[in-house]
């Protein structure tokens, strides 16, 4: 990846992002593990086996990010959800149902191949696709909010398909603040 | 009369009508367009007066003058509002939109200092340029981005760029310039068409012609005889198309006996097609439409030129124009005038023995092909 060659230390954000991406893929390919982790989290919430709020705490946003998987990816110009994406979103829906104090903002993003305005529209489509899926899995619509960033917030900065593929995404950001 | 003759007759009558009225329509705008040109200064005057009156209403027009921007522009100090540099400034805080200058005409009628009032330079009724006979030495080289009718290869490194190709000579009349001698000149490198970034092929030769000649130069050959008595001495009177039609008609009908106008006998036969083409080529090399507005590029202007025996223009006059409004016509005429004056500065290369045939020239400048290059 080109940005590593710049010699700058990676920011915390970058590390998190890459870790998240990796975990999301792992989660996609191994749904059983996801279910098991969820069960463990529910059972051990009060046991003190891990620090509350850490990535091991199944009720934490970090756990949601890293273990459940907070993002799904899209093909060029597309906003339909792949089977892998649906699996990830199934996990997100379960988590949100199990943690009703959390709300979520779904951020839609696009790669840089396209005009600024069109990409905002495209990001809106993607975030909406995720929202609709989560609602169809039982999450209350008033807990979800969508926002499109178009191509304004790339996560990968190279100008190659490897990066573009990761930038065409919808990211579910959970927090306890009200969505609107 | 059989049917064929009737059809033929009707067709020919239509042809006559078209010829007559076509000629009439063509010549009709002549007297009017000239006066329209004088109205232009009025237009410009109005345009200039408009901003002049602006300061009175300045209070209402809020935007650019508000001093508030100074205070509220974040982050930037106002340290650089001293004498600004002319070079591209860095990101620097400068005062908000500069105050709108008041615009006034420089010349009040009573201003004795101003020596060059327009009426002294040109007759108020017509836009006629009268030339002082000056020698124009060679031009400076021009920039490379030139579009010309024919692709021109890059000239010899030591050749001066000029509209007129000439061999290197020893100094004679160029003495008043800093240059010691007249260098060889050659037309500037040029393409036939603007090539945009989007159209550039990967490794295109810069001087490559990108489309075929729309009108190849005709070979210099004697003009074919197409009309009656071409070898006869021609009258030199200037006349409209209509009277020319009448004369031609009378001549054709009556065997040429009708017309009895005075003739100053020209010395020599009419110009050959090759000679005319040479003149055309000479003028078009100087007809620069690159600085004309889109509107002015819609205007076809007919210019009357009078040459002295050396082929240098002594007067230029706009005869008619079609295709545009006052301002556009004026700019189209000025570009045509520049073409004649610049390329005629050393005298057009025309056969001296046919002077009476080319003393008065009507040049039609038609920019149709130049609109989208």
């Amino acid at each position: 990846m080109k940005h590593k060659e710049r010699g700058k230390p990676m920011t915390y954000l970058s590390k998190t992002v890459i870790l998240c991406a990796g975990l999301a893929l792992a989660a996609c390919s191994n749904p059983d593990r996801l279910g098991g982790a969820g069960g463990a989290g529910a059972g051990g919430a009060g046991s003190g086996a891990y620090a509350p709020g850490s990535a091991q705490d199944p009720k934490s946003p970090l756990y949601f990010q890293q273990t459940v998987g907070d993002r799904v990816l899209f093909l060029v110009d597309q906003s339909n959800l792949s089977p892998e994406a649906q699996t990830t979103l199934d996990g997100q829906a379960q988590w949100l149902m199990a943690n009703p104090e959390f709300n979520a903002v779904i951020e839609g993003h696009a790669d840089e191949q396209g005009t600024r305005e069109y990409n905002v529209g495209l990001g809106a489509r993607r975030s909406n696709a995720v929202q609709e899926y989560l609602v169809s899995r039982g999450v209350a619509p008033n807990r979800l909010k969508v926002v499109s960033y178009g191509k304004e917030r790339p996560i990968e900065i190279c100008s190659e398909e490897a990066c573009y593929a990761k930038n065409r995404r919808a990211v579910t950001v959970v927090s306890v603040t009200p969505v609107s | 009369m059989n049917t064929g003759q009737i059809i033929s007759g009707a067709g020919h009558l239509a042809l006559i009508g078209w010829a007559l009225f076509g000629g009439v329509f063509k010549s009709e705008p002549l007297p009017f367009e000239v006066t329209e040109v004088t109205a232009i200064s009025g237009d410009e005057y109005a345009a200039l007066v408009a901003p002049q009156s602006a300061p009175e209403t300045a209070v209402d027009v809020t935007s650019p003058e508000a001093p508030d921007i100074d205070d509220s522009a974040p982050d930037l100090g106002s340290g650089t509002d001293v004498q600004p540099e002319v070079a591209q400034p860095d990101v620097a805080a400068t005062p908000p939109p500069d105050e709108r200058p008041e615009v006034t005409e420089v010349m009040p009628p009573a201003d004795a200092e101003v020596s060059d009032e327009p009426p002294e330079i040109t007759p108020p009724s017509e836009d006629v340029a009268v030339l002082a006979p000056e020698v124009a030495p060679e031009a400076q080289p021009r920039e490379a981005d030139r579009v010309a009718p024919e692709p021109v290869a890059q000239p010899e490194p030591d050749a001066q760029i000029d509209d007129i190709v000439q061999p290197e000579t020893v100094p004679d009349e160029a003495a008043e310039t800093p240059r010691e001698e007249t260098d060889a000149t050659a037309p500037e490198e040029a393409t036939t068409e603007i090539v945009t970034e989007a159209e550039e092929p990967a490794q295109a030769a810069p001087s490559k012609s990108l489309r075929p000649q729309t009108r190849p130069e005709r070979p210099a050959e004697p003009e074919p005889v197409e009309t009656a008595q071409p070898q006869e001495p021609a009258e030199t009177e200037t006349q409209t198309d209509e009277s020319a039609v009448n004369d031609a008609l009378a001549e054709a009908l009556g065997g040429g006996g009708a017309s009895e106008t005075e003739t100053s006998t020209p010395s020599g036969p009419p110009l050959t097609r090759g000679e005319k083409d040479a003149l055309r080529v000479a003028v078009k090399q100087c007809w620069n439409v690159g600085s004309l507005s889109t509107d002015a590029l819609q205007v076809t202007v007919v210019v009357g030129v009078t040459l002295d025996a050396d082929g240098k223009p002594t007067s230029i006059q706009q005869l008619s124009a079609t295709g545009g409004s006052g301002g556009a016509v004026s700019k189209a005429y000025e570009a045509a005038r520049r073409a004649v004056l610049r390329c005629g500065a050393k005298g057009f290369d025309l056969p001296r023995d046919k002077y009476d045939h080319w003393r008065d020239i009507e040049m039609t400048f038609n920019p149709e092909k130049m609109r989208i290059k």
Partner: protein
Amino acid sequence: MMRQFLTLLTAATLLAASVTTPVVAQSPGPLRIEIDEGVIEPLPYAVPDFVADTDAAAELGRNISRVIAADLSGTGLFRELPKDAFISQITSFASPVQYADWKAINAQALITGAVSVDGNGRLVVQFRVYDVFAGQELGQGLQLTGTQDGWRRMAHKVADQVYSRITGEGGYFDSRVVFVAETGPKDQRAKRLAIMDYDGANVKYLTDSSSIVLAPRFSPKGDRILYTSYETGEPRIYELNIGSVTRRVLPTQAGTMSFAPRFGPDGQTVVYSQAQGGNTDLFSMNIATGASNRLTSAPSIETAPSFSPDGSQIVFESDRSGSPQLYVMPSGGGEARRISFGQGRYGTPVWSPRGDLVAFTKQSKGRFHIGVMRLDGSEERLLTASFLDEGPTWSPNGRVIMFTRETQGASGKASLYSVDISGRNLKPVQTGTGASDPAWSPLQQ
């Protein structure tokens, strides 16, 4: 009878031959030739330093003539002759011009001027424009009065006059550009609104960089700006008064995202995109009353609307056909007509101020282009090509297009470029920082 008729026919035939081909007509009178081809090249001009009677004024005089020259030469339509080529100097504004000296160096236009400071400390600039080869003045002399600080604007106004007197169309030098100044790496880019003179001078910031801002657009009078900001978390449209640098959010529908705003020619009507439920449609709003109404209701993305100069129509971008293309519809909504049919994706159409052309972004075969076409989609012409060009904006006279060019890769950076609508004179616009989304103001009053 028959004989006479035939004679007439013969005469008519001869007549037709002579009249329809005037070039070869041998009738007496002036020689007639038609010039139907010419050259396109920068017109050489000279602009000696404006004369002054004090040292301070002389400095201003030099600066003003330099700005005028930068304006004129920057168009690509004119070429300044260097001072060391001058044969005669202009030492007095009132003295007659030695045309022969300027002809000798092929100066086809000559601009002379004088600078002084009046009793109130006001700067007074006078100038004249000459057609050297015709030996006469183009237009009449003008005098401008303003503050000394405002000398750049006065220079731009002089250059506008010169431009207009030679070309026959209005200039664009006394104008400004609002844009998004960009700093920082691609994935953490800070964006803020900035405004500058058209030539890059006098950059000022209008917002801070705490939230993403996109695509500012001028009001018809140039006194206000519409832009999109993520200040509240989602994209919403703001109106900013340039004079007071105060802003307000437009009352678009709650729970939606709104973006891509543009003023109508009345300065009151705004068209924009609103995204709701994943669908982006066009809306218009009267910003005085806040009343809005829906213009499109297709399941596709409709965005980047731009009014015709008379306000009767809107050109916009839609992917209703499967890929983004350009459409025109009445400004109140209604049936839309597709105008782009070339290969590729079309976006961000902008109606020219002259009304005859649409500038657009085109994406084709992995490259981006800025192009122009007529309103019926004919005469498409691509002016640029690069990794990423987008977001054209027109100069006030409809002659030049400014746009965003972004370079490729991890170190990619955005900057502004301009190009003549002929495709010539492509060049960067200096902004100091990275820059995107330019919008050109109308000529200042």
